[in-house]
């Protein structure tokens, strides 16, 4: 039994040549602590954005109340609702990469502390999710820019 398990361990080790040695551990540890800091700052920014959105909504609602339900008041309240929604949407979009980053950092720190392979895998998976999320977001934003550029050119050529 003992020999059998030894053999399997040896076989597994032969498959994977790359190791997380002391140097890599120190790099990953530093990355994790900066990542934790950045994710916490990101969460605070999300919170501030939500607060600003709600304040905007309140101020626009107060402005709209001056109009007493006329056309201007209606448009102001609609603008206020738009700005509030926009800010909250941005805050929600910005929330998720920070969540992934926080998960990466926390799991990486515990993986390095306990030399836990499962935590390490989960941590790197979270960092991958963070990169993927930001990458897809970048693609979406760039395509928005491209579309608006094309629409702008077409609109300019029509006049």
């Amino acid at each position, binding site marked *: 039994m003992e020999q059998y398990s030894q053999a399997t361990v*040896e076989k597994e*080790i*032969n*498959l*994977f*040549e*790359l*190791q*997380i*040695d*002391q*140097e*890599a*551990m120190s*790099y*990953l540890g*530093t*990355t994790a602590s*900066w*990542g934790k*800091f*950045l994710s916490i*700052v990101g969460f605070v920014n999300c919170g501030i954005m939500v607060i600003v959105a709600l304040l905007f909504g309140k101020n626009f609602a107060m402005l709209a109340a001056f109009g007493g339900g006329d056309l201007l008041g209606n448009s102001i309240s609609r603008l206020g609702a738009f700005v509030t929604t926009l800010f909250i949407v941005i805050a929600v979009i910005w929330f998720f990469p920070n969540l992934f980053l926080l998960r990466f950092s926390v799991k990486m720190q515990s*993986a*390095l502390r306990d*030399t836990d*392979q499962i935590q*390490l*895998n989960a941590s*790197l*998976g979270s*960092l*991958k999710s963070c*990169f*993927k999320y*930001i*990458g897809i977001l*970048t693609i979406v934003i*760039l395509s928005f820019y491209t579309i608006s550029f094309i629409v702008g050119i077409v609109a300019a050529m029509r006049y």
Partner: protein
Amino acid sequence: METLHQPVHLSDNLFELQIDQENTSYLSEMARWGKFLSIVGFVLTGLVTLALLVKAFSADNYVSLYTPLWQKAMVPMLLIAVILLYFFPCLYLYNFSSKMKFALRSDDQEYMLIAFKNLKACFKFVGICTLVMISLNLIIWIFLITR
């Protein structure tokens, strides 16, 4: 060849953490997205540099002989700061991605270390920039409140 690998196996007892199949897929996907993000970043840096050049070589209607130097220098300085602050994390990210891709393809421990070092440098750079931004914000707020 087999004996050459023996010292590596000796160190297995010391370091339990491995780059296994699951990790490899995560790291290679990370490298791909990182490369894309860094290239987008390089392009944006290039666009800002272009803006700087256009600003430098265009006639400015708002500048006269009596404009103080700090007013003339403000926009170029800001643009240069943006370029520098944006270029270096992108460079580190690009280094991470290319080195990690190579390390995973050829099982090279040295390159993997360089890749992780660059990832660390990227996070550290962005983190220190964030710290500086936050402290500048605080200073400006304190200045505005106490004025």
